[in-house]
């Protein structure tokens, strides 16, 4: 399974890959997360096609468009595509239509290119909100599950932030199977000049929950 966004479907490599997969009839599932924004460029400026799914037709593969905010619909479409691949029936392109609610990066300011109204409209369709509503309705939501997930994420972030910085010399460890003599000499020079890196004395404390979000960043509403 290969994952990519709507912007990536404008890259030549997307088309080359679809074409190769079609010609060779290989077991691949292409999953496009169409969140409608490639940083500041909306889908209508990315492609003149009505859908991304239809691009599959040109390569002789099935293309499916699915509500990407419907967890079960995505699961069903993916399972069907995976079964097709496993059965030797070749590749599938799945376009999951969703929306990028947050910023692209910390340097991005979505208020420059899209309206709050548009974002608010899509927030109503947030897949987590919808799936929770579904589970609650069917009485399937386990008590305390959300808290456990939040704790797990917080713990992972804490572990990451507590990781001491790596020794700079490790940059030489995986450049080649065996370091060429000149690169070995570069490593030796660094080893001779660089003292062993001390543990970061001014390590920044982990981000506090509820800290002010960046411009355009969306805070979880849970």
């Amino acid at each position, binding site marked *: 399974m290969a994952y990519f966004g709507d912007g990536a479907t404008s890259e*030549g*490599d997307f088309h*080359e*890959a679809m*074409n*190769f997969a079609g*010609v060779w009839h290989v077991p691949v599932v292409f999953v496009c997360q169409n969140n409608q924004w490639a940083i500041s460029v909306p889908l209508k400026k990315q492609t003149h096609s009505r859908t991304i799914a239809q691009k599959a037709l040109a390569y002789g593969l099935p293309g499916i468009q699915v509500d990407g905010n419907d967890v079960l619909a995505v699961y069903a479409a993916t399972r069907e595509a995976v079964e097709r691949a496993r059965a030797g029936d070749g590749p599938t392109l799945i376009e999951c239509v969703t929306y990028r609610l947050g910023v692209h990066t910390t340097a991005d300011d979505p208020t420059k290119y899209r309206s709050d109204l548009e974002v608010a409209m899509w927030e109503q369709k947030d897949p987590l909100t919808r799936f929770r509503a579904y589970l609650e309705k069917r009485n399937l939501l386990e008590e305390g599950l959300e808290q456990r997930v939040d704790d797990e994420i917080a713990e992972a972030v804490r572990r990451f932030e507590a990781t001491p910085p790596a020794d700079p010399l490790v940059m030489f*460890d*995986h*450049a*080649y*199977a065996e370091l*060429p*003599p*000149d*690169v070995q000499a570069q490593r030796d020079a660094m080893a001779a000049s660089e003292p062993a890196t001390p543990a970061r004395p001014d390590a920044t404390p982990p981000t506090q929950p509820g800290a002010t979000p960046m411009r355009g960043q969306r805070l979880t509403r849970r």
Partner: protein
Amino acid sequence: MAKLNMVKALNQALFQEMERDADVLVLGEDVGVDGGVFRVTDDLQRTYGSQRVIDSPLAEAAIIGTAVGMALYGLKPVCEIQFSGFAFQCFHQIENHCARYRMRSQGRFHVPMVIRMPYGGGVRALEHHSESEEQFYAHIPGLKMVIPSGPRNARALLAAAIRDPDPVIFFEAKSLYHAAKEEVPDESEVIAIGRAQVAREGDALTLIAYGAMLRVALEAADVLRDEDGVAVEVIDLLTVSPLDRETLVASVKKTGRAVVVHEAPRSFGPGAEIAASIMDGAFLSLEAPIRRVTAYDVPFVGFAREKANVPDVPRVVSAVRETLAF
């Protein structure tokens, strides 16, 4: 022992390596039924089938991208890019992925693949079919850049490249494909990647070349011996990167002078790196500045003016004489 040209020698290397290791496969445009536009992959598909000798659609990025995936999966793909001038279509796959997976995955994955490309001028071909672009690949950490100069070392270096655990860019000089035949032993041989060879010993000056330029360097050395009575030492680089600085420095410590010959344009080319390495290692032995005989810093000039652009024997002889007279 058989007399083979470079095409036959490379073909034999592929046969021997595919026989030796079932993970080796060949992938590229026209490599199967057609045996490659230069026939380097001739008869491989007939012997090993279309699952191991794969005709791909016409798309260089997908050839390299697919091969990177195969290599991550444990196979050893040997890709053919039909002409080195077409490789800019897949340069991002080479630089961004092929060269980096070992580092990116902190050693969990590596990419044991070879990318073969015919390069260079001398066959009166058109644009994108005549250039020398080794400097781009030599500059990329994580890759190795190999250029043989004759049938026997071509076969041995291709075998070494296929067995190498890291990605190797393998340039084949088009002008050498059918240029000469050489005695090649029946048994497979390898030449260590990263080692240059002294092609001819001498004491007056070190002449450094590789690929198609080795023949030019050796002919220039003949002229200098016959007309000037000087013994020029000729070094055949064989591997551009990693550069065998040790052999270069040892030679220049003996001769005190060096001239580098390559077909690629001069500025920021391999000659500059070679000259800097000699300065680093043999500065006090140098009697003259290191000269470079290269193509000029101009875009592709067209085949009618190719001979004026690619280094030839008179230009090399004259650079050596100037260096000796300095």
